[in-house]
């Protein structure tokens, strides 16, 4: 355990540098192959290109030949990885030693699902990977080859290219903090900032260290260069986010503009069914509780002069927002799934950011932190009371952008 203690207390964290002469993806897959062969891992959960189309599916694989079509960082996010991990472990821990390779937003969704008691982390090694964003699903399916090229280009440049989704362009959590005191993932794969000839495997928890140990990989490379680059990109993206959200808010806020955003909604609830945070077995908005008698609807129609169908689309979106905004990881799955191309994820990301700031809560970063609505302080939020009575606390203090 001396290595662990060293990382925790004395020395700055270090990573294992893996040479990537044949490209970073090959290098990463090589590590996974070795991990499966040496039985350091029983299986790996990773996106794999499906044989018939250009799409990707998650596969839990043991057979190393399947790794040939695997991609640790596919150009699109077809299915949110946090949700996949929850499907696997919802009803209890697994007894196999597996690793899951997730983007930062997928990792954070997994951590939120863990807090929501929808996922078990026992025997699972979470491997997160720096992510330059993902191509919008519809664009990718229309022109896969072109999209792949633009994705490689983004991966090369690491500076929010227009090719990736809007929420990705303004995502400043494209990497995860590798602090051992608040681990989100067990092992982080650092990409940006390295020369293209190597990949950094950064152990965050003892689980991550154990994997490296089993693979005879020594975490002895400095992270400084990687960290500097991450900070640089983070700065650029944070500024871009600030500007974008400012302009976006002006365009969508207010009762009229807000309802106009969801004008095209066909009430398919795709956004809810792909959302990793929406875990309820039955959504309230699908339940009979929200369906009323025709008499009620006629009364409503009379008051308004007309009644639009599908009913209650705004109630659905606002209600869903009030259920999951505090845990929203801005992964953009909702927008990819929207057949009407509504900017759902941009709206949710904006609201998520503002509510999370008010609660001083960052979803998916710290497994130990309790969910914002399952906790309270006796003296807080007095500013929301009328008349206000308690002394203001620092509940509005904005947490450092980790």
């Amino acid at each position, binding site marked *: 355990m001396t290595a662990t203690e060293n990382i925790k207390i004395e020395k700055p964290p270090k990573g294992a540098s893996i040479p990537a002469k044949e490209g970073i993806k090959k290098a990463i897959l090589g590590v996974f192959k070795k991990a499966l062969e040496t039985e350091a891992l029983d299986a790996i959960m990773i996106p794999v290109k499906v044989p018939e189309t250009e799409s990707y599916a998650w596969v839990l694989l043991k057979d190393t030949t399947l790794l040939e079509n695997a991609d640790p960082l596919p150009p699109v996010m077809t299915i949110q990885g946090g949700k996949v991990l929850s499907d696997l472990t919802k009803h209890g821990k697994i007894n196999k030693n597996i690793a899951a390779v997730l983007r930062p937003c997928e990792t954070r969704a997994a951590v939120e699902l863990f807090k929501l008691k929808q996922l078990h982390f026992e025997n699972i090694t979470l491997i997160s990977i720096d992510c330059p964003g993902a191509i919008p699903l519809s664009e990718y399916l229309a022109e896969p080859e072109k999209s792949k090229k633009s994705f490689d280009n983004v991966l090369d440049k690491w500076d929010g290219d227009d090719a990736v989704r809007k929420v990705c362009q303004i995502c400043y959590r494209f990497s995860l903090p590798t602090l051992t005191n608040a681990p989100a993932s067990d092992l982080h794969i650092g990409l940006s900032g390295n020369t293209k000839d190597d990949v950094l495997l950064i152990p965050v928890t003892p689980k991550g260290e154990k994997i490296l140990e089993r693979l005879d990989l020594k975490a002895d490379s400095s992270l400084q260069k990687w960290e500097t680059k991450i900070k640089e990109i983070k700065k650029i993206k944070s500024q871009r986010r600030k500007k974008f959200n400012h302009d976006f808010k002006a365009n969508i*806020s207010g009762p009229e503009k807000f309802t106009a955003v969801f004008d095209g909604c066909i009430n398919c609830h795709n956004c809810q069914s792909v959302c990793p945070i929406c875990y309820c077995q039955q959504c309230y908005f699908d339940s009979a509780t929200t369906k009323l008698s025709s008499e009620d609807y006629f009364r409503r129609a009379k008051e308004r002069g007309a009644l639009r169908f599908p009913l209650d689309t705004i109630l659905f979106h606002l209600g869903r927002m009030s259920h999951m905004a505090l845990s929203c990881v801005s992964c953009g799955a909702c927008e990819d799934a929207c057949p009407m191309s509504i900017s759902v994820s941009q709206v949710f990301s904006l609201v998520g950011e503002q509510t999370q700031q008010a609660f001083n809560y960052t979803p998916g970063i710290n497994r130990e932190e309790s969910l914002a609505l399952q906790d309270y302080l006796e003296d807080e939020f007095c500013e929301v009371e009328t008349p206000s009575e308690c002394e203001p606390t620092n509940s509005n203090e904005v947490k450092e952008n980790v």
Partner: protein
Amino acid sequence: MDKDFKPNIVGFLCNWCSYAGADLAGSNKLEIKPFLSVVKVMCSSRVNSNLVLTSFLWGADGVLIAGCHPGDCHYEKGNYYARRRFALLKKIMESLNLEPQRLQLSWVSASEGKRYAEVVNKFAEDITKIGPSPFRKNQNL
């Protein structure tokens, strides 16, 4: 300001404090503006976002949630949770500029009949000033 405008306000009052407070205000014959439709709930934490949002989208001009003072909850900590949920909803309305001033949280105990009257009258006055909810006539909901 429309002089004939009579706001339609939904008030969720907790059974143990605010509802009793409203009762006391009535017994004391305090003057209360007749714009509040009272819904009795067992605790302010019973009020979830769906109740509030449905009220607004169906055309309520204001929503008042009233419960026991912090520390006095009949269920010990219900109102602390209610305050967090309220803060979330308020913040969502703020971040989308959905006229958050139409939503109010007030603490009124069973002995505060006078305070109840003041809170309701002041809120009714504020809502009258703001005017009818834009959702009232919105056909796009």
